[in-house]
């Protein structure tokens, strides 16, 4: 028997932004790879099930497939914190290398196996931002008593520095920040944030996004459905996903910066956390990581494997490091996004 020609996919992101658009793009790649035999019907968040319930619904077979950021079920599958939001995590290139040329995919699938879910990494995007703030962060002390909407491991790191991390539901984030119920929020990458209108209500847009390295979006397919496909079809799914990853990696980074420029024009001040702050965050992360590795052996295994792999790539680039090319006199130099804390 052959699997469904049109796979119902419950997305955790609106197709109006880059993260959800990725699923629509994947559908096109899949049609190309299969000669039009298989495509996706991407459902908006909440259309079939609420975003946080996507994993569950795919696992039970209530929904055939899902398009999701894995960090949403870190409460269920702790290692997804690594694929969805690893503080001080690697860049997309290194992460991708680990995913396919290292143990990345294998370990992820192993974590999803007990839930009867096939996982296909189908989109990667660069690290997120440090978040939207209505007050300056000049020293680590500034985090004391700061009320911030942030989830996952990054929240645990901030807790160590005395911040009060909050749970504010998606629909109320805008109001909570506007009215000052929270002083800061973390949401996503600039191309996604820009669609939320946060620039209207926040003064500072902080970088770097220390709390999350590169992120993956995955296509989740119920194993019962997946196994209906022939081996050839399965291979075509993989091809489409890799092609989609390549698309995302090419499109996203330059677009982020274009968006940041637009946000600056609207009056948002782009800042960088001072080195002292980043270093304090890093120290706190060491503590949090220790807890996490103690509590979750699978997380420990994956983290160590990832770091070993990243080491190889870093070494290569260190050997090859070159200064940026010099400009020809009179040539227009592109102006970089400038953060004030950068100096």
């Amino acid at each position, binding site marked *: 028997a052959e699997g469904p020609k049109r796979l119902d996919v419950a997305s955790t992101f*609106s197709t*109006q932004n880059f993260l959800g658009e990725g699923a629509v793009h994947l559908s096109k790649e899949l049609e190309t790879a299969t000669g039009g035999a298989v495509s996706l019907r991407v459902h908006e968040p909440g259309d079939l*099930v*609420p975003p946080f*319930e996507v994993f569950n619904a795919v696992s039970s077979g209530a929904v055939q497939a899902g398009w999701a950021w894995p960090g949403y079920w870190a409460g269920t599958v702790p290692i997804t914190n690594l694929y969805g939001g690893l503080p001080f995590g690697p860049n997309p290139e290194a992460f991708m290398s680990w995913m396919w040329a290292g143990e990345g995919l294998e370990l992820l699938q192993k974590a999803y196996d007990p839930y009867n879910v096939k996982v296909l990494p189908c989109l990667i995007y660069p690290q997120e931002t440090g978040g939207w703030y209505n007050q300056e962060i000049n020293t680590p002390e500034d985090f004391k008593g700061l009320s911030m909407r942030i989830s996952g491991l990054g929240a645990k790191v901030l807790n160590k520095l005395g911040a009060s991390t909050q749970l504010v539901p998606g*629909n*109320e984030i805008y109001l909570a920040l506007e009215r000052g119920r929270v002083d800061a929020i973390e949401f996503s990458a600039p191309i996604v944030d820009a*669609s939320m*209108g946060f620039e209207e209500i926040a003064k500072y847009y902080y970088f770097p996004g220390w709390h999350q390295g590169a992120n993956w979006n995955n296509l989740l397919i119920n194993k019962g459905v997946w196994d209906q496909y022939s081996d050839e079809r399965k291979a075509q799914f993989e091809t489409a996903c890799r092609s989609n990853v390549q698309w995302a990696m090419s499109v996203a980074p330059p677009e982020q910066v274009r968006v940041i420029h637009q946000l600056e024009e609207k009056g948002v001040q782009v800042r960088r956390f001072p080195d002292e702050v980043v270093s304090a965050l890093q120290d706190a992360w060491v503590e949090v990581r220790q807890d996490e590795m103690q509590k979750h052996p699978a997380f420990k295994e994956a983290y160590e494997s990832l770091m070993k792999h990243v080491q190889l790539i870093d070494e290569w680039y260190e050997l090859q490091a070159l200064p940026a090319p010099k400009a020809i006199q009179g040539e227009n130099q592109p102006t970089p996004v400038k953060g004030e804390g950068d100096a």
Partner: protein
Amino acid sequence: MSADFFSEYALAIAMVVALLAGIFTGYPVAFLLGGLGIAFAFIGDIPIPFLGTVGSRIFGGVIENWLMIAIPLFVFMGLMLERSGVAKRLLLTLQRLFGRTPGGLAISVAILGVVMAASTGIIGASVVMLGLLALPVMMKQGYRAEMACGVIAASGTLGILIPPSIMLVLMGSILQVSVGALFKAALLPGLLLGVLYIVYLLAVAWLKPDWAPLADPDALDADTTPLPLALVRDLLGPVVLIVAVLGSIMAGIATPTEAAAIGAVGSLMLALAARSLDWATLRGAVRETSRTSAMILFVVIGATCFSVVFKRLGGDYMIEEMITGTGLGPYGLLLLIMALIFVLGFFLEWIEISFVVLPLVAPVIELLDFGYGLSGQALLIWFAILVAINLQTSFLTPPFGYALFYLKGITEGQIGIGTIYRSIIPFVLLQITGLVLCIVFPALVLWLPGLL
């Protein structure tokens, strides 16, 4: 629409027909929605595991949905204010303030509705609270039920339009327009509706005095406290309460959901201060809160089952085809979309309409030329506000208006739904008038955000 259309979407159409037929049997709407969802899943041969989505939807959409917590809290606040007599005294004193203006009580209710609208965006909560406060007072004063129910349901639903409004936040992110601009844009239309209500109330009170009788002069005079003093005495508590609710939102102390709890605790304190809080009152309020909120939330639970099956049977494609399959001009298309949303409002929740319809029609709307030099953001914001007014109206339209059900729910069977249906007709006409005004004069929407 061709014959093909009807055969392709036969089950989706049958579902709507069954719903409309079913509600007239008088069986509870919440259970009818849920049960029909299950029944049509079997009729439509939908794989049973698919219904597993319903449990997830109930959990994510109701239980885990933090915003819904405001419902029992606002209901409790309303009950406490009603039972402690605080609300009654406030309304009576407000009436003295309005002198011998005919319809003064109804106008007070409308104004109270507008004020409450600024603190909550949850229809069920504000309609129920306003109903608990005002309905007993209005009926006691001899108001016609048609008059009382209409003004309560209509003013109670203003909350979803007047900012802060969660509906506008969601629309902003779906349509990719500024939420701040949407808030500003919604303000004038929201107030306009409030004004239209009041004008209507004045007219009725003048033309048909027996519909909106004045308070018994003896009753008003019985209160010999000089008016300014009485005002201070009776307004102080409730005003402090409203200021606490709105103020805690504005000052960033609380989100709108949390502000509901502040209001609930405040109402307890008012009752305590008025020495009308005893054990039986508290127990009664708590129990009725539980039943009334469950009544509201089970309609949402039933609807979530109905709609997921409706969509699975092609209901959303049916809607899409109805919009795109016509060859209408800009205004024709706009009217069609408005009519469609209006009808969908009969049986879907605003969240689902926003998610289903807006992404479908936004690209279409963006390409249309309505004159006025509208384009880009301004065009989308104008459109979003039109949709918002329309959705607000759909809460009020018989036979399937949530606001009407919630109001019905608190009348304990003493007012029939027929009376409530009749009561709302003039207000729906006023809503449509407001909508048409906003279509004809986009400045009403776009002037405040500075887009014109």
